[in-house]
C-alpha cells in the first residue's frame, strides 16, 4: 500500500502467492529443458513455460514492474543469443564431417550430461522460444497501452 506498484496489477493475495510460486514455475521450465533428452518435454515446452512465468509476472504485478527489471531489449538479446548458439552447434558439426553431426561424447544413457548435442540444442531452443514469446507479448502490450 505504501508503494506505487501496489496500485497496478492484482490484489495483495494474488501478489503474495505469485511471489512464492513464480520461481518454482521458472525452475520447472528449466527442469523440463535440461531433462529434454531423458523425459518427455524439451526446449520448446520448457521455453513456453518460462515465457508463461514472465507473462504471469506481467499480469500480476503490472507491466511497469517487469519492464523495470527485464525490458524487451534484454529479452531480444537473450533470444538472439539462443539463435546464434543453435547455429554455432550446427556449424560445429563441420569439425567432424557434416552439418549437425553429434560430435560431443555420447555419455552413459540416463545420465544428465549425455547424448551429445541434444542438451545444448534444447537450451538454445528454450532461449529462442521463451524469450521470443515473452518479447512478442510485451511488445503487443506496449503497443496497446501506447494507443490509449
Amino acid at each position, binding site marked *: 500500500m505504501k508503494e506505487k506498484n501496489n496500485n497496478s496489477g492484482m490484489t495483495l493475495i494474488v501478489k503474495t502467492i505469485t511471489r512464492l510460486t513464480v520461481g518454482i514455475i521458472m525452475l520447472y521450465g528449466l527442469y523440463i529443458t535440461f531433462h*529434454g*533428452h*531423458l*523425459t*518427455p518435454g*524439451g*526446449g520448446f515446452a520448457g521455453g513456453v513455460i518460462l515465457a508463461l512465468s514472465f507473462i504471469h509476472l506481467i499480469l500480476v504485478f503490472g507491466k511497469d514492474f517487469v519492464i523495470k527489471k527485464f525490458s*524487451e531489449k534484454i529479452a*531480444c538479446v537473450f*533470444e538472439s543469443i539462443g*539463435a546464434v548458439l*543453435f*547455429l554455432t552447434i*550446427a556449424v560445429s558439426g563441420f569439425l567432424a564431417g557434416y*552439418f*549437425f553431426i*553429434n560430435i560431443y561424447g*555420447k*555419455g*552413459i*544413457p*540416463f545420465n544428465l550430461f*549425455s*547424448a*551429445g*548435442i*541434444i542438451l545444448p*540444442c*534444447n537450451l*538454445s*531452443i528454450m532461449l*529462442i*522460444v521463451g524469450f*521470443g*514469446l515473452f*518479447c*512478442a507479448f510485451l*511488445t*503487443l502490450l*506496449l*503497443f496497446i497501452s*501506447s494507443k490509449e
Partner: protein
Amino acid sequence: MTVETIISFLIFLMILGAVVAVEIKDLLSSVVSIGAVGVILSLTFLLLQAPDLAIVQLVVEILALIILIRATVTRDSVNYSQREIFVKVVTMIGVLVFLISLVSVIKLLPPFGEPKLKVASYYINEGLGIKNNISETGAANIVSSIILDYRAYDTLGEATVLFCAVLGVLAVMRKVGRKNEREK
C-alpha cells in the same frame, strides 16, 4: 520432369505472387496473394522432403492469413449481402465435397496400433539400441533424439520460423513508427 524443375517453377510462382502482393491496389487481394506464396513455400518444403517443416509452414501461414484478413477486412469493407445465396450454395458444395473425401479417406486408414508405414522402426531400433544394444544418440528420450539429432535440420527451420515471427512483431510495432504517426 525432375524435382529441380518443379521447385524452380514453384519459386518462379512465389516471386510472381510476391510481386503481385506488393504492386496490387486492393489490400485484401494482396493478403490473399501472400497466402498463396506461403502455400507454395509449404509445397516446396514437401518436395524437399521436410514434411514437418511443411506442416509448420502451412499452419503458421493459415494463422497469419486469418490475422491479416481480420486486420484488412475491417478497413475496406466487402459487401457479401448481395450474393448471399451464391455464398451459401458454394459453402454447401464445399462442405459436401470435404465430407465425401473424408469418409473415403477414413476407410483407407489402417487399424489402430498396426501402422503400415515403417519409417519409425529404424529410429526406434538404432536410436534406442534395441538391435545391437548400442544407442546411436545416447539419449533416453527417443522423440528428443529424433527432433534434435536425426532431424535437427527441420528443428533449425522451425526455430528460424519462430525467430522471424518475433522479429516481424518487433519490426511492425517498434516505437519509432508510433512516434512518427503521432507527429502527423
